């Protein structure tokens, strides 16, 4: 029996066992839904589930990226404010600065 099996496999295998048939597009999804209709069962429409998942994922992505940009913007704003303050202070000499604070405290 084993030698019979080996012989069979050697000869036939050369032809290959790929099926030369195809089916219409979305056939199996449509078929399953057809049977479900016949037995009175309403399932989630798998065909439309995937596009909705992509849309939802897109929105989540937009929100996350938006949050990222906003936090970077805020950080930059703080840095800019600090830089501006440093710049202004650098334009004023120490004596003038001290005079200013003294005048302010005596008001």
């Amino acid at each position, binding site marked *: 029996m084993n030698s019979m099996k080996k012989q*069979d496999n050697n000869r036939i295998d050369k032809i290959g066992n790929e*099926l*030369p048939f195809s089916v219409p597009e979305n056939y199996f999804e449509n078929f*399953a839904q057809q049977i479900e209709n016949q037995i009175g069962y309403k399932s989630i429409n798998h065909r439309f589930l995937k596009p909705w998942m992509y849309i939802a994922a897109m929105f989540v992505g937009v929100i996350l990226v938006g949050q990222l940009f906003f936090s970077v913007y805020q950080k930059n704003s703080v840095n800019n404010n600090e830089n501006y303050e440093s710049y202004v202070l650098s334009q004023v000499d120490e004596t003038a600065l001290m005079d200013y604070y003294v005048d302010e405290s005596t008001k």
Partner: protein
Amino acid sequence: MNLTDKELQIQLNKPDQKAKAFSAVVRAYQERLYWHIRKMVLSHDDANDVLQNCFMKAWNGIDGFRGDSQISTWLYRIATNETLTFLANKKLRNLQSMDDVEDNLLQNLQSDHYFNGNEIQLKLQKAIITLPEKQRLVFNMKYFDDITYEKMEAILGTSVGALKASYHHAVKKIEKFFEENE
């Protein structure tokens, strides 16, 4: 819904879960059963009809399914019987001999929109169709699906020894067909 056979069977026996569980069965097995049928009837339209009959028969017979075999075995048995019945009815409807039915199947195959095989594959299909129906089943299940002989025994109700011999003879006939039609 990835459930084991046992879980599916429990669900199938509950009236409020039956339809949902059967939907899971359809989605899990429709492709395998379709190709099993298609290899015998060759035409997509005929395979579609037989597959529908198969699942409606299964749905109507669910209450009688006691789990003494696997769900796949049970479904394959129904699909096989529906296929053989379809071919027998085709012969009766057209009052043709089986040879004429086979000729028709072949002619339809070559002009079928959903056949995309090359010359060798077409020749192989021509060779397979010359086999008696049950031998054709055995050959298809072994050669294309590599179903074990033990599983085939459960589906077809034929002993492993007889199945092995049937397959061996089928191969020989196909080789002879190729030699004679080179």
